[in-house]
């Protein structure tokens, strides 16, 4: 299920929640949305569902316009909102039955299987469930729908580490089954784990799209030199080198690491550390926080 947005913009009176967002997600891809709070992730997802009307621009899911043909769009989509609110007076089983029956392709049996997998007690009333249990209930309702597109807004929030792993497995299974997943999260390792591509939003604008397979090839080498700074080996166009006067050197490469290791062995190194360039490095490139803010958040 293909998703396409064209200069999609959502403006409130003084605030621009999403600005000129043009995005194309081909079918059968797990696409991650990253950005701090208020970056426009949820706005983008809710525009796709027709919950919001764009100020300008357009969005399509498959061949359907998200405003004019919102009903057809929602037939193709299973959506997990960022903040799950369910019918408080109903029992878990009642909620799942409701969502199974309200969709033509819904299945109560499938929902029950997902609930079992998430170790959810369906006999409890929603009002007496914890936040995590409600999250699991909503996940069971969403993953029981056999739709070609899954839109998940922070699906692992409020879940324990085991359940987070379960949810990630379910996302991978959905991907393997040929479904498209649009995935918004703040947890970078999860996004790295399951996404094929990642879009980074900043102040309502899509500032970067990262192909994860390219990122996984990239490595960063921290080294301390005892001698002069070397010239890069020939044929390593993707290699970038930064040095300081103290002999510290940071190299970044997206090329073959084996060839580079041979060259490194010839250098007068006092210490060396090699690490993959994670999503955090890409993310922080666009979201640099002042140090005191980092301290306050414990980051």
């Amino acid at each position, binding site marked *: 299920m293909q998703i396409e947005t064209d200069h999609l913009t959502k403006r409130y009176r003084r605030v621009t929640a999403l600005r000129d967002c043009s995005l194309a997600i081909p079918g059968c891809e797990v696409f991650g949305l990253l950005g701090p709070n208020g970056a426009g992730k949820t706005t983008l997802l809710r525009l796709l569902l027709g919950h919001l009307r764009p100020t300008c621009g357009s969005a399509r899911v498959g061949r359907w316009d998200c405003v004019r043909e919102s009903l057809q769009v929602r037939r193709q989509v299973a959506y997990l909102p960022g*903040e799950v*609110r*369910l*019918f408080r007076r109903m029992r878990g089983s009642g909620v799942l039955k409701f969502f199974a029956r*309200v*969709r033509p392709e819904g299945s109560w049996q499938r929902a029950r299987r997902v609930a079992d997998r998430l170790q959810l007690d369906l006999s409890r009333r929603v009002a007496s469930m914890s936040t995590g249990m409600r999250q699991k209930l909503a996940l069971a309702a969403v993953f029981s729908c056999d739709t070609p597109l899954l839109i998940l807004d922070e699906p692992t929030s409020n879940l324990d580490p085991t359940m987070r792993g379960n949810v990630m497995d379910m996302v991978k299974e959905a991907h393997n089954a040929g479904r498209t997943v649009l995935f918004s999260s703040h947890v970078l390792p999860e996004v790295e784990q399951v996404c094929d591509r990642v879009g980074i939003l900043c102040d309502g604008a899509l500032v970067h799209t990262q192909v994860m397979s390219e990122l996984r090839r990239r490595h960063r080498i921290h080294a301390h030199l005892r001698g002069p700074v070397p010239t890069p080996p020939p044929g390593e166009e993707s290699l970038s080198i930064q040095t300081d006067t103290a002999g510290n050197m940071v190299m970044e490469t997206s090329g073959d690491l084996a060839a580079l290791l041979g060259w490194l062995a010839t250098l007068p190194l006092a210490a060396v550390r090699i690490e993959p360039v994670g999503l955090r490095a890409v993310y922080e490139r666009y979201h640099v926080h002042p140090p005191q803010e980092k301290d306050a958040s414990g980051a």
Partner: protein
Amino acid sequence: MRNLIRPFNVVLVRKAIADARLLLLGSLFVMFSFCWLRVWVVSLFPMDRFQTIVEQFREFERFMPVPFEQLFTYSGRIALTYDELIVVMCMAVWAIARGSDCVSGALGRGTLEMVLAQPISRARLLLTQAAVTTAGSILLGLASWLGIYVGIHVTHVKQVVTPPVWTPSLSGADFAPWVSSVTVAVPMSQHIDPRVFWPAAINLAALGFFLAGLSTLISAVDRFRWRTIGVVATIYVVQLIMKIAGLASERLAWMLNWTFFTCYEPERFVSYAVHVPRSAWQIIRVDASGQWLGPGPVGHDLILVGLGLVAYAGALLVFTRRDLPAP
């Protein structure tokens, strides 16, 4: 048939009924039992004593939709039930509670986010709620009539009668003045036909439909249920004051044309049903010369239903076009 029920989703209908069940059952119980009780209370006060009391308020007759003479009949006194605070509030609470819950209530609870992520159109969601609320309003109108019907059939009123005494005479039965009158209890049903209260019950249901439509319209615009209820309650009170002011002063009589309470006059419609049964079902009233006298009872009901439909249409228009705020 399938096309007829298409605007309503069966699962949503069940959900709406489940949500409204407690309020509806409570309201039906209150409506039925109060109307029954009210008939019984009427039977407790002898008509002559009631008349003496009411006569002292003759100067306030202009506030009544019917002449005081109508109140000196059992049907007139029972018809006052439809102006009782409990009856009107019972219908108003039902209509405002359900109407306000439709959009702003669901938005406030945050449940609309996931419900509208399903393949359910906003129009279908609103129409389903409207259908259940309307059915509830009709049931409440019916419960009021049933309460009166049961009350009339199980209640007895005291009546002074002089037993006929047969004395031989050329003309047949003759009255014997030496025989004293006795007070006997006779079924109230001998005095009143409960069918005369149908126009009042329908008028009450029409009021409920209008109030539900108005509440749904405000709810479709708003995002907080408490504010929706506040706005509708304010409109209700202002409209009521306009009616009272319009009746109180000739100078303010124009206000009567701008309050929906002008269309809620169950006592008058019962009076029509008692005196000229055919006129209780008229859309418009004309005199013998064909002169327009105003809308008839059905006409008033149609105005309320029409205003309710306009409000529902407005609610549909707003709700299908608005942004849904995040929970």
